[in-house]
Every structure is written in C-alpha cells, then in structure tokens.
C-alpha cells in the first residue's frame, strides 16, 4: 500500500501525544519501560491478542496484525516463545503505529473494495514506507527522545559518542574509545540506566544514532550482523559494563 510521506517530527509527535493521552488516563507520569500493552488496552481501548497468525493468515513471516474494524491488535505467538521482550513489545508498538498513522487510509481503501480492513506485517516488507513509518513510531513510543537523551547525558555527558574504529584501540573506558565492537555495551548501558527493559539492544542503538547521540563514522553497521561481537560475548560485556564507566 502506498502511504503519504510523513516527516519524522510528525511521527514523533504522534507518539509523544499518545503517551500524554495515556498519562492523562492513568493520572500519572509515564516513564520507561513504556507499558505498551496497557497503552493498547487502556490508552487506545483496543483488544490485544496473541494468535498463531502464521497459520491463520497462511503467511510464514508475519509478526503482527492490526484488525481495524474489530479494533484489535494481534501478535504472532512465536514472539512469546522467543522470550524476546524487546521484539514482542516493538511489534506491539509497531502495530500501534499502524493504528495511529494508517488506519484511516486502510479504512478508506477497504470501503472502496468492500473488504474488512486489516494490516499484517511481514519481515520481508520491513523496508516499505508503511512499515518504516510504523517502525519509526514504535521507536519513538518505546524510547521517548527526552528520556533517552537524559539517560545518555547522565552516563556519557553532553557530547555524542563518535565511533571511528571497529575495535577498541586501547583498554580505556567506552566513553573515550567507543568502537563498533562495543555497540551492544553502549546500548545495554543506556537501557539499564534508563529502565528501557522492554526494548532490544538493536532498537536502542538505532535510536541513539537517530537522536545523534551515537555517531558511526565507520562503514560497518552497528548491528548483530555488522558487528564482529558475538551474542555470547555480550553477556560477559554486560556483566562488566557497570565497572567500565
């Protein structure tokens, strides 16, 4: 589906307005971890569900779906067995993004063809504008800019971390010698300090770069694929991260 272009600022505003709306409903301030499931149920008055979407929709890489007419957001059960809180919550937040940003378009399109409106999200569609917008909304919702900035500044100070090297050139603190190899530690430290317990390290490092707090000057992407570091090794790095800083 073709969606109109939306500036990042507008998408971020939608996310921030939703948090304000939810805070008004629950009558208290909202801090990370952002209670994404409660935002769906209480904040938006939508039904939340877990189902075998892969079987139901007969699509083998579907992660979530938003059923507009039924006012229902559903994620695939496989996300529960993955035991990945970050991935599960990001999918919920992504579907909220569709609800906020795209439901009117879908409703309009469905009226034209007299069909039930729903959006399903597949891994292979990740680069489509409609999915990109929902992804960006999800990152703004789960990692509000002010909370991420405050946490980052509290740990690393007011200057961004600029990454020039793949590996650490000396065994100094990460704040003086950030490198591609250490991106998971940087992300994990911000997550631990700021209470971002329902996001993944990958999502956090993308958000840090998006906010200009981490600048990658190398040609290697800060991702599990791009980094030389293994997932096993990150466990040890996390253990020592508190002493590093």
């Amino acid at each position, binding site marked *: 589906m073709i969606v109109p272009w939306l500036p990042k600022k507008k998408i971020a505003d939608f996310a921030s307005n939703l948090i304000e709306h939810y805070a008004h409903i629950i009558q208290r301030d909202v801090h990370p971890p952002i209670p994404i*499931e*409660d935002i769906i*149920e*209480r904040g938006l008055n939508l*039904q*939340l*569900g*877990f*189902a*075998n979407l892969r079987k139901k929709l007969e699509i083998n890489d579907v992660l979530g779906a938003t059923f507009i007419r039924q006012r*229902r957001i*559903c994620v695939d*059960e496989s996300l*529960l067995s993955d035991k990945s809180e970050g991935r599960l919550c990001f999918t919920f937040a992504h579907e909220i993004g569709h609800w906020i940003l795209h439901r009117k378009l879908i409703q309009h399109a469905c009226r034209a063809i007299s069909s039930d409106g729903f959006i399903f999200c597949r891994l292979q569609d990740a680069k489509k504008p409609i999915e990109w917008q929902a992804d960006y909304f999800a990152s703004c919702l789960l990692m509000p800019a002010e909370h991420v900035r405050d946490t980052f500044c509290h740990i690393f100070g007011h200057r961004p971390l600029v990454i020039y090297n793949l590996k650490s050139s000396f065994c100094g603190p990460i704040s003086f010698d950030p490198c591609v190899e250490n991106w998971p530690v940087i992300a994990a430290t911000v997550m631990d300090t700021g209470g971002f317990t329902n996001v993944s390290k990958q999502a956090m490092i993308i958000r840090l770069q998006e906010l200009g707090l981490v600048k990658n000057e190398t040609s290697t992407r800060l991702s599990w694929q791009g980094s030389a570091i293994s997932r096993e090794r990150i466990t040890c790095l996390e253990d020592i991260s508190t002493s590093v800083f």
Partner: protein
Amino acid sequence: MTDTFGKILRKLRMQSGMGLRELARLIDKSPGYLSDVEQDNVPPPSEEVIINIAAALNVNKNLLLLAAHKMDPELSNYIAEEPQAADFLRMAKDKEFKGTDWEKLSKFAELIDLGKPKKDTK
C-alpha cells in the same frame, strides 16, 4: 443482551489493572489461549480455571462462574453429598421457582436460623 464470558473477563481484568500476559502467567495458561477466551473464540474454561482466574483477579468467583453458566464445584459436590438438597432443587425446578421465590426462601431460612452462619463466598 447480556455480556459474554469473554467480555466480562476482560472487563474484570482491566478493572484490576492486570495485563493479559500477567494473568496468563498467574493461572498457568498461554496468553494466546487467554486472548481467545476473552474474544469468545473458544468456550469458557473449566470451573477450576475460572476459580483460579477469580483468585488471581481478586474478584468473586460466582461472577465469573455465572457468566460461564457453570456451577461452583463446591456446590455441585455439596449437592452430590446431600441427596435431600438435590431433591429440594428438583422440586424447585418442577415448581419453577423464580428470583422472588428464592429471595423469600433465603429470608425464611435466615429467620428460622437454618444451618451455620454465612461464609465469605470469595
């Protein structure tokens, strides 16, 4: 039209401020199953599960049992152990006792001090 079991359960869960996953964990069921129950995609769970749900949500179990058209196992056991109670209920059914009849009977039972004092039904 009266609300379905799923709708009543969701309402009670929301009122208690508990998430779907948290409730599923407390009653040892999958979140997928619980969301199916809430959306009435499957029949209401067994009496035992309903009682566990009520305990987890800290609500009166009778509310949920009634919504599921199920009988409290304590009650069915009592009737099974007291044949006269079953006879009495059969008579009440034949005579088509209605709400007001049961109210009168309850008041009468209280008046003549039948049985032990009332227990908490939670």
